[in-house]
């Protein structure tokens, strides 16, 4: 079904847009101008009112000029006041339609709709914002499905979604657990940064304040004993845990994964509820991650690399951020992917250990050498090299691969372990590569390129195989692509 006449986004958008920008412009600018030129409060209010009206007018014009049309074979978006632009997206190219509700939009009963195609562009088509009912209708139309009868109160989880069985869900307790695993050390750095700043301030105090500063510094140094440092570290650690839990709760509260009609539907979020749809046939590969702490407790995370439709820079969509092995297996089975099997995997060549050591050592050694110039205690830093060396020596044990019936399976990583499942039909280009050192060691790497991968080293490459193994792997992969 189509509606030929152009539609506009919801008028409430004008209000939201206005409110979003008001603090810095309508209130901020006249206040600064008035205060700096010494005008009265009445003048400031008048200036704010005039500026507000002008802004409202421009917001209204750009709202009027933004239209979208669902034609028979394409979605047309026209926008722009001075530079008119018209974008036409063939319906066949639309990969995903996601609905997101930010807190301010929720207040107005609105939702933002993002239409994603395979292209790499960020905002290919964003409708900000339309009523929830219209969003549901639009999504149904764009997906070529039966239209959901519009009713007044629709949650983001549409009735259409709720029909499908839940494949995986995280109760609040588990979301909090996930938050505790993902505490960030940023707080510690920030806190010590503030202390450092304070220290420097005291150090470079003005001449007049020097005497006072010296007294204060002695005071600070006297009190800033090891106990105090530990207290600060403990406080930062607590802050890190709390902020991690809050961030995770905001993002993953009510994490629910449903499956049906060839699609996964993931809903999550506390303030901003978001629903993401992942079409099963767009899944390029599966990746199972086990962080250092999580892995030890038997938890792992599953994500799918999909073609388009991911806001994540890695190009992957989280399917289960904290799951037990049988839950991961169940999602994989639902997606029609083979299970990861550890037993038949082959390790890479011993040369991998040499290359890992050569890669791991230079930076810490340079750091210790530089620190030695400052304090002889830096020799203790050499102790830190022991775990680094241990990890490098273990790299080979944890880097294995196998050509299974329908997929390439690769595992890599000692502390943060990753397993890849790459169905053969999703391998795009295979590259054999050997650098100078690799040729001396008689090894080579096999790089496996897939669609939709972002940056960040998430590729299922097999590094440092014996040359004969590398040839066999490359030829085997190409032969199975067919």
């Amino acid at each position, binding site marked *: 079904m189509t509606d030929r006449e152009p539609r506009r986004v919801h008028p409430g958008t004008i209000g939201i847009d206005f409110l979003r920008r008001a603090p810095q412009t309508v209130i901020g600018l006249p206040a600064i101008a008035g205060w700096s030129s010494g005008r009265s409060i009445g003048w400031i209010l008048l200036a704010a009112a005039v500026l507000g009206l002008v802004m409202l007018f421009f917001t209204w014009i750009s709202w009027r000029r933004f239209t979208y049309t669902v034609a028979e074979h394409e979605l047309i978006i026209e926008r722009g006041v001075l530079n008119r632009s018209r974008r036409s997206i063939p319906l066949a190219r639309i990969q995903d339609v996601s609905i997101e509700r930010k807190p301010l939009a929720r207040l107005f009963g609105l939702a933002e709709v993002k239409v994603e195609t395979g292209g790499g562009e960020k905002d290919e088509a964003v409708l900000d914002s339309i009523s929830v009912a219209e969003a549901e209708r639009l999504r149904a139309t764009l997906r070529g499905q039966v239209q959901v009868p519009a009713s007044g109160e629709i949650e983001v989880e549409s009735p259409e979604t709720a029909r499908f069985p839940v494949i995986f869900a995280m109760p609040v307790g588990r979301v909090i657990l996930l938050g505790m695993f993902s505490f960030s050390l940023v707080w510690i750095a920030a806190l010590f940064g503030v202390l450092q700043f304070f220290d420097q301030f005291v150090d470079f105090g003005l001449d007049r304040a020097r005497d006072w500063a010296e007294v204060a510094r002695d005071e600070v140094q006297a009190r800033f004993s090891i106990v105090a440092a530990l207290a600060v570290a403990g406080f930062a650690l607590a802050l890190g845990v709390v902020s991690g839990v809050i961030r995770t709760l905001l993002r993953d509260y009510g994490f629910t994964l449903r499956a049906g009609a060839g699609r996964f539907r993931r809903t999550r979020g506390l303030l901003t509820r978001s629903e993401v749809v992942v079409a099963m046939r767009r899944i390029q590969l599966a990746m199972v991650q086990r962080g250092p702490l999580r892995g030890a407790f038997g938890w792992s995370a599953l994500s799918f690399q999909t073609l388009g439709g991911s806001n994540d820079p890695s190009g992957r969509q989280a399917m289960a951020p904290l799951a037990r092995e049988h839950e991961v297996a169940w999602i994989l089975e639902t997606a029609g992917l083979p299970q990861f099997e550890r037993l038949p995997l082959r390790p890479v060549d011993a040369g991998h250990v040499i290359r890992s050591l050569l890669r791991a050592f230079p930076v810490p050694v340079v750091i210790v050498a530089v620190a030695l110039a400052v304090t002889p205690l830096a020799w203790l830093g050499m102790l830190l090299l022991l775990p680094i060396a241990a990890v490098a020596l273990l790299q080979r044990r944890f880097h294995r691969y196998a050509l299974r019936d329908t997929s390439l399976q690769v595992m890599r990583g000692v502390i943060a372990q990753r397993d890849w499942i790459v169905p053969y039909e999703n391998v*795009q280009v295979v590259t054999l590569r050997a650098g100078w050192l690799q040729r001396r060691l008689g090894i080579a790497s096999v790089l496996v390129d897939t669609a939709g991968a972002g940056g960040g080293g998430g590729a299922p490459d097999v590094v440092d195989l014996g040359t004969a193994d590398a040839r066999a792997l490359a030829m085997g992969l190409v032969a199975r692509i067919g």
Partner: protein
Amino acid sequence: MLLPEIPLQPLERGQINVMRLTSAIGFGGATVIAAIPSWALSHSWEWLPVWAAPTAVALLGLWSTLLVRRRWARWGWAWTGRELHVASGWLVRSHTIVPATRVQHIDVTQGPVQRMFGVATLVLHTAGTAGSEVDLPGISRETAEEIRDAIREHLSSDPW
């Protein structure tokens, strides 16, 4: 030779001249550009000779231009009827295999320098990320078009 079981064909000899000329032009331009900051800095630091930086760049260019033959010899390609192999690299050697069914579209391009020496570049686009574009430079235009037509028969509508 990373994959000895695939016999590779060398590039056209004209490509040696293309590589020499592009390297000479590139480093010639870099020499001129390097002269500008060198000239500007020599005003504040008297001990710095004006010719030092441009000479260093020019020597680098000479070295790179003299190495062209070796780099050229490292290139090789093969069309097996199912996939295209492209090997290259002097220090880091690589051998890329593009299955014909994974190709999304194909270009045959010919720059002005390439036209002078009668060679062309075959460009394969895939849906991949790092290997989304695989170039095979330095083959004759006829060969490039032959391979293009052969691959075209394999193109599938849904390569994902």
